[in-house]
């Protein structure tokens, strides 16, 4: 196994990969850019930029109108991207692939769609490590229905407390909504196990995959989740588009989310009927070029050796972990056994915002703050963290630069 991953690492030519991402070769504050904020949004390869450019230059028109050639081309590109996403997720049918603006809208759509099933006293199980986007939509629905949002607690290392999960999961649980990967901690949650246990009790399962898809490919049929949501922009595609996967039977049973064009079959003042899936949930003209861009991002990833990419990412995280001791007072927040390359940390005596400002001076981009996960900040009793989040196009040298930058900041405060 280790031989295989070494071989894969050797096979990955990071410098060649970086040339696919033109934005990376620039100077910031007079220093070469070191982009370590991939968890917030990842950069885009030329393949994505070209696909969107070509779409607008050669085939743009509104989709699903069928009256002329351009419209046919646009529709073919748009629906082709949907098929690409279906393949990426291994969904059974493109009827189960709904375009949204992103993960946040996808979760809001599900929460609203499930609202009619929720009653006073029902419970929606989330975890303490959720992004606000997987807490607040449920709270809003809970407010309307009398249901309650209940958090699963964590271990100090930042893993789900499985005993707590099993205690919380019960007769009242209607929905389990959980992150595949934590945006702050990098923890990969054992979602297959959680889904199996929830399904045994008839609980609807919703997986927030926003932080998972940049690092690995989820198989929704193998996971057997009811819903899976992700955003394009974190997986090297354009902003403004995301995906909700949902099992067909559940989507059929759900009411539409927004009303307008495209989502209807027939409108009259007496009775309006809904279009078939997936269009029932896609009111208005969709983000066509963005869908095409996302399709191109998935195609781009498919052309790469994903095993080699994952090995390279593991190597980045391992190097970062090995360097922690070189920065006195540095502490990693989130030390789960299974992690994507995300490093949240604090440094004694330094506010995260100071760390962010002074790394920026050195051309190094990280995220600081509460990361839209305030309940998690409360758990660790910190106002926020500094977070370096890596992508496969980052280099070991950039990891070294991050730590050299941190040591420099410490000297500044000494």
């Amino acid at each position, binding site marked *: 196994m280790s031989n295989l991953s070494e071989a894969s690492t050797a096979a990955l030519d990071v410098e060649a990969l970086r040339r696919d991402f033109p934005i990376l070769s620039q100077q910031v504050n007079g220093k070469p850019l070191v982009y370590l904020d991939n968890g917030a949004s990842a950069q885009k390869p030329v393949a994505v930029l070209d696909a969107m450019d070509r779409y607008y230059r050669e085939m743009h028109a509104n989709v699903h109108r069928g009256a002329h050639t351009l419209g046919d081309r646009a529709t073919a590109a748009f629906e082709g991207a949907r098929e690409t996403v279906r393949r990426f997720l291994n969904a059974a049918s493109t009827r189960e692939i709904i375009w949204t603006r992103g993960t946040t809208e996808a979760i809001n759509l599900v929460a609203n769609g499930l609202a009619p099933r929720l009653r006073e006293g029902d419970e929606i199980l989330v975890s303490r490590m959720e992004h606000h986007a997987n807490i607040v939509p449920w709270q809003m629905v809970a407010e309307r229905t009398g249901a309650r949002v209940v958090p699963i607690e964590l271990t100090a290392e930042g893993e789900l407390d499985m005993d707590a999960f099993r205690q919380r999961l019960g007769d009242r649980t209607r929905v389990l909504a959980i992150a595949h990967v934590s945006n702050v901690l990098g923890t990969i949650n054992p979602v297959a196990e959680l889904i199996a246990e929830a399904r045994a009790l008839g609980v609807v399962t919703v997986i927030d995959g926003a932080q998972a898809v940049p690092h690995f490919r989820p198989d929704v049929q193998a996971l057997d989740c009811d819903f899976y949501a992700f955003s394009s922009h974190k997986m090297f595609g354009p902003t403004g588009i995301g995906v909700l996967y949902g099992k067909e039977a559940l989507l059929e049973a759900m009411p539409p989310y927004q009303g307008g064009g495209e989502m209807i079959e027939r409108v009259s003042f007496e009775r309006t009927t809904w279009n078939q899936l997936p269009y029932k949930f896609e009111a208005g003209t969709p983000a066509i070029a963005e869908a095409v861009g996302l399709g191109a991002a998935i195609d781009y990833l498919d052309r790469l050796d994903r095993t080699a990419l994952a090995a390279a990412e593991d190597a980045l995280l391992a190097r970062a972990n090995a360097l922690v001791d070189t920065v006195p007072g540095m502490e990693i927040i989130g030390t789960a056994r299974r992690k994507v390359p995300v490093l949240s940390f604090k440094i004694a005596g330094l506010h995260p915002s*100071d760390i962010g400002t002074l790394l920026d001076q050195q051309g190094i981009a990280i995220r600081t703050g509460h990361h839209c996960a305030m309940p998690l900040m409360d758990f660790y009793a910190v*106002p926020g963290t500094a977070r370096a989040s890596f992508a496969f196009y980052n280099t070991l040298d950039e990891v070294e630069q991050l730590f050299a930058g941190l040591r420099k900041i410490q000297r*500044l405060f000494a």
Partner: protein
Amino acid sequence: MTVQTRAFLDNPLGTETTLKDVLDAFEFLDDWEERYAYIIDLGKQLPPFPDEARVEDNYVHGCQSQVWLIHHYDDARDRLYLLIDSDAMIVRGLAAIILVALNGKSPRDLLTTDIDELFEQLDLFRHISPTRGNGLRAMVSRIRDIAAAQLERD
């Protein structure tokens, strides 16, 4: 004189440490490290912030760090005194620069001072630009609101 009023008058920023001092110092700072070391040092000149003033009304929202701001108006001399606190050192330093420019002025003078121009001059504009969520902009707006309200009262 209350303890709090004392703290306002003991603030060296804008009185002992003048805007000219800061501008002169910046002239001699070559690289970003020296500049930020100086900003951090300026932040250390902020007088202790009274604990009893850490209440919601004095909290400046929109900052990654916790920022507190209080004021005291000396009627007889027509001077507005300000105290700021933050748990982030760079924000403290930038707040100190704001105080050097604005503390102890009359509300009228304060409102005619162009902080954006000053930050541009110091090559720190990015910190106060509306795109940065560090609360500097919110801090300056709060101070200007206080001065404007004082002028209206007169």
